[in-house]
């Protein structure tokens, strides 16, 4: 079981993110929970492509005589990180406009005020 420790780290990330998403009442804390889930999934994508005892897939000044890790999950995780930036920026901007309109960031109170 101690060989699978990267997968357990991914589960801890996703578990903490879902806990923050379900049980907290502040809008900024909910945004942090969404960001935690995204980072956990990116870590999982990268740890799927590892070969034991291999080096980075770059030919400039590489150490000789060793195999290379798989490069495709690294290329697709780049795209996923940038999409995470776009999502987090939009969530925080909408939270700022809600604070200007309602005066509070508590999720229960926002549901009850009208207008």
């Amino acid at each position, binding site marked *: 079981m101690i060989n699978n420790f990267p997968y357990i780290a991914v589960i801890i990330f996703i578990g903490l993110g879902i806990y923050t998403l379900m049980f907290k009442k502040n809008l900024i804390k909910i945004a942090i929970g969404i960001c935690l889930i995204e980072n956990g999934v990116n870590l999982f994508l990268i740890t799927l492509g590892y070969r034991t005892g291999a080096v980075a897939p770059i030919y*400039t000044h590489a150490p000789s005589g060793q195999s290379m890790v798989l490069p495709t999950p690294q290329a697709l995780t780049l795209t996923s990180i940038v999409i995470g930036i776009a999502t987090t920026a939009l969530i925080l901007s909408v939270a700022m406009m809600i604070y200007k309109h309602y005066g509070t960031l508590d999720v229960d109170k926002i549901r009850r005020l009208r207008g």
Partner: protein
Amino acid sequence: MKQMSKIVRTITNLVYGFIIIFGFYVIVHGHLTPGGGFQGGAVVASAFALLVISYGALNIQKLLKKDLLSILESCGLTMFIVLSFLGLGITFFYNFLANSGSWFGDTAVIGINPGNMNTGGVIPLMNIAVGLEVLAALGVIVLIMAIGAEFTKKKENS
């Protein structure tokens, strides 16, 4: 946001040029070392965020203009799309400059080698286009959210 103290402003004046130059180094050498367009663009945008924090959002608008950053971002994305259409004789996104002998067209030595910057084909040009777009996009996001923080503040005694 208000200005920070004199020590912070002095160190920012000394350091932000080096951060911008390091970001451009990471963008341009994307086909030889780890890095590329997205990573180098994020490094340059962190220099912009340092400027916004230490000088205040309303004072930095004379140095970082929002209109110039917006035009840079559109130019970056347009250059990326034009580069992808230029190889349409064979297929979409065809690397028509690789191994051809003209601009960025040397053939690379197979195996482990110190890098030759003249190789790569259309990849360094795409790196520059995407790097311009990412640095302008992240700079606009940081600047507009800093200005908007003044706008959405609740009045203290109402």
